[in-house]
């Protein structure tokens, strides 16, 4: 019972999401780790969506290409997805589909037995619960709770629908379904990247979030808005992304930690603001949730296509930081780090996620909430007579005060300025000194940025480089390759700008693995270190990288 992958497929609006969410919670509630990811089109109803739930004994936070159980809600979905079902797997679908299938015409049964198609979902859930060998009682409890607000008639109709599905599948299952998900004592958090980012921001003492809706980043502000009063975080929907980034900068200047989040197109609109934060030395945290571009691209899919753009975003020269968390737990802590370092270095921190991390639900054993702490710069101004917001210092970090909190005036300027924040045209000293002061912060930053994670490096002949949310899949690929007898290791970056001092081992063959076509991290590494790549494993079809995909591409390109 170590690793089961269930795929639920159907049209948007047909219940894929509802069934998937309920099953994810139900399975997790039994003490299993789950990993769920969605694949959907940019429309509200119709099309074809899928929801994969990977169930494990231990953590298994990566997508799988193959399914043990396919639950297809309509025939189109059956056609589209039947190919991913393992030989040992089964299909639960409207029609009979080969030997290993359980045909249940959900809608017509629902209509016939309960008068309304709406019960089809609950029938499907019953079938799935049966196929997985789960205890019906506790799931029925969840169903009761879910529908309790709708009155006892609806509750009991759903109970019956559940039982109907359960028993229909039960009969067919007999020889086909080896699975038995008995209740266990362990328990995991099940959380999406967006939710973890939101909570990490809260933990980092963020007090203001503003954004303009943009898939796949919207989940962050949506979640925060639902708990804003509890947390004391003010939430504002902006009229556009330009306003969002400037509001965040204003609030930060005035003394509260602030953030915004967006995707590629909205990020493009924020670029002038990024340069403003760099010049005025205002801390700013931006989450960039990637989706495939250019332009509108594939709005509901995933990609890692904006790294080089983010690293170089903004006119002129100034330091910034780039984080790219690997999973929700990492994202939680990275947010705290982003706020801390943005404040310490008084500049912009960009946290890059992607649709896959943003929307998928991962299992987390323990968040170690206390591990990373928000810390605050303290500026002692007792005795300061002549406060200078941009005082020249060796570290490039000047004493930062907030306006209105003391008698000291806090003057921020987007023009080149003197130590007081007033416009300067002194090209002999002040202007070049200020350029140097800002750039000097890079030195400190390079030391604050964490080194990449090294996995199985010692014995490795082949070493992959990766970044961000692909970590889980690459780790799994290392396992697959090991079984093939290939010694492979990984150097994985979750903090990638400014690149830290780091020595790539010399005797290895390097391959990059990235969700883009140009090999963007590889390019960045080549510009900074002495490293050559033998090949690039690239995915650019909008889907997340899987272990399977990596192995296949590796063999393909290595021939």
């Amino acid at each position, binding site marked *: 019972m170590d690793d089961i992958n269930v795929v639920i497929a159907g049209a948007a609006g047909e219940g894929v999401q509802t069934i998937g969410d309920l099953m*994810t919670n139900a399975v*997790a*509630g039994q003490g299993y780790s789950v990993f769920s990811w969605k694949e959907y089109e940019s429309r509200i109803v119709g099309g074809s969506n899928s929801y994969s739930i990977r169930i494990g004994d231990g953590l298994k936070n990566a997508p799988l290409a193959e399914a043990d159980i396919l639950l297809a809600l309509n025939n189109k979905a059956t056609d589209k997805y039947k190919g991913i079902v393992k030989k040992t797997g089964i299909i639960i679908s409207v029609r009979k589909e080969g030997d290993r299938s359980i045909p249940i015409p959900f809608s017509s049964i629902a209509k016939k037995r309960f008068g309304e198609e709406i019960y089809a979902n609950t029938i499907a859930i019953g079938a799935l619960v049966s196929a997985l060998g789960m205890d019906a009682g506790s799931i029925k409890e969840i169903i009761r709770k879910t529908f309790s607000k709708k009155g006892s008639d609806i509750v009991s109709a759903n109970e019956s629908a559940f039982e109907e599905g359960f028993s229909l599948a039960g009969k067919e299952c007999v020889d086909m379904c080896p699975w038995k998900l008995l209740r266990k004592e362990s*328990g*995991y*958090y*099940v*959380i999406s990247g967006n*939710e973890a980012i939101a*909570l990490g921001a*809260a*933990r*980092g*003492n963020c*007090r*203001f979030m503003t954004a303009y809706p943009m898939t796949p980043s919207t989940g962050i502000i949506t979640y925060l808005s639902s708990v*804003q*009063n509890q*947390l*004391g975080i*003010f939430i*504002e929907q*902006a*009229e*556009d992304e*330009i*306003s*969002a980034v*400037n*509001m965040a*900068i*204003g*609030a*930060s*200047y*005035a*003394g*509260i930690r602030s953030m915004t989040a967006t995707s590629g197109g909205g990020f493009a609109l924020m670029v*002038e*603001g990024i340069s*403003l934060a760099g010049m*005025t030395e205002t801390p700013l945290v931006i989450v960039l949730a990637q989706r495939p571009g250019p332009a509108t691209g594939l709005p509901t899919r995933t990609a890692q296509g904006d790294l080089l753009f983010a690293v170089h975003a903004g006119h002129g020269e100034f330091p910034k930081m780039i984080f790219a968390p690997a999973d929700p737990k990492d994202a939680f802590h990275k947010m705290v780090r982003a706020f801390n370092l943005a404040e310490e270095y008084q500049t912009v921190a960009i946290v890059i996620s992607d649709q896959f991390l943003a929307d998928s639900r991962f299992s987390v054993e323990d*968040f170690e*909430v206390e591990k990373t702490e*928000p810390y*605050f710069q303290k500026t002692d101004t007792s005795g300061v007579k002549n406060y200078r917001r941009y005082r020249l210092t060796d570290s490039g970090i000047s004493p930062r005060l*907030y*306006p*209105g*909190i003391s*008698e*000291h*005036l806090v*003057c*921020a*300027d*987007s023009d080149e300025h003197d130590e007081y*924040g*007033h*416009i300067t045209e002194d090209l002999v000293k002040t202007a070049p000194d200020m350029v140097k002061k800002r750039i000097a912060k890079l030195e400190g930053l390079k030391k604050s940025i964490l080194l990449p994670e090294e996995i199985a490096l010692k014995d490795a002949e082949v070493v992959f480089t990766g970044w961000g949310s692909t970590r889980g899949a690459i780790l799994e690929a290392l396992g697959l390759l090991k079984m093939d007898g290939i010694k492979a290791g990984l150097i994985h970056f979750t903090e990638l700008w400014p690149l830290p001092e780091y020595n790539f081992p010399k005797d290895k063959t390097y391959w990059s693995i990235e969700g883009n076509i140009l090999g963007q991290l590889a390019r960045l590494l080549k510009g900074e270190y002495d490293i050559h790549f033998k090949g690039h494993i690239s995915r650019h079809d909008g889907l997340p990288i899987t272990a399977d995909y990596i192995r296949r591409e590796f063999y393909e390109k290595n021939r």
Partner: protein
Amino acid sequence: MKKTDEFDNRVEIQWCPGCPNYGILNALKGALAELGKSPHEICLVSGIGQAAKLPHYLKCNFFNGLHGRAIPVATGINIANPDLTTIVVTGDGDCYGEGGNHFIHAIRRNPDLTVFVHNNEIYALTKGQASPTTPLGEKRRLKMSGVEIPPINMPAFAIMQDCSFVARGFAGDLKHLQDIMVRSIRHRGMSYVDIIQPCITWGTHPVSWYKERVRRIGDDHNPEDKNSALDIALTKDGFIHTGVLYEVPSGNIFASRFRKEVTSRPLTGLEIQSPEKIHELLLKFKPV
């Protein structure tokens, strides 16, 4: 009462000698003194342009940001610390051109800010192009045969959208301007003053030309009367009508629900978020 010179600083002013902006600067100092404000209680926010340089010439906190983006920055400041007297100093290009979208949505959002638009009907800092308020037919750089598109009437729009304080001032009538400024800063919610500020270097007409065309709005106008305010704003009789066009108690002020339900203190003063709260919320992600 405070003295005006409390707001003086020793920064060299970069405006042309004789520019009416000097008068506006003095009126603002006068208004702040009249209101009994101290420099550190004030935060001026500006974009880029001649007008937008003003914050440098007045002792205060300031954020001199990007062209067109003063209003969002000021809104952010207002969120963090509503105790600051936050004033936006902007130009007709800055506010109605590049920043047009922020302005129209700020009126809806109604933050407790004051917005002064130095309206010289031109892009002065970039040497004389037409702005959104340049009258039809006036000659401007890039439009040497005369501007072909009509100006925008933002005061009328603001009144229509129920901005609760809308006025027009004139840099050639400073006493009146200072009065308007005092009233506008006192006003709770967003207050907006469009200030006629002839550009004597690139503009078409000298200050005297404007003086002949400015008329103070008479006492018979009731600033609470929206229709009458709109009428004046829309009047095209060749005169410029100055004074408070519209002033009513502000309805919903930006963030007021949050201030009521969560905290009325400036957010800058909040305690650090407790890890317990985070644990509490995380627990909801643990299915049972």
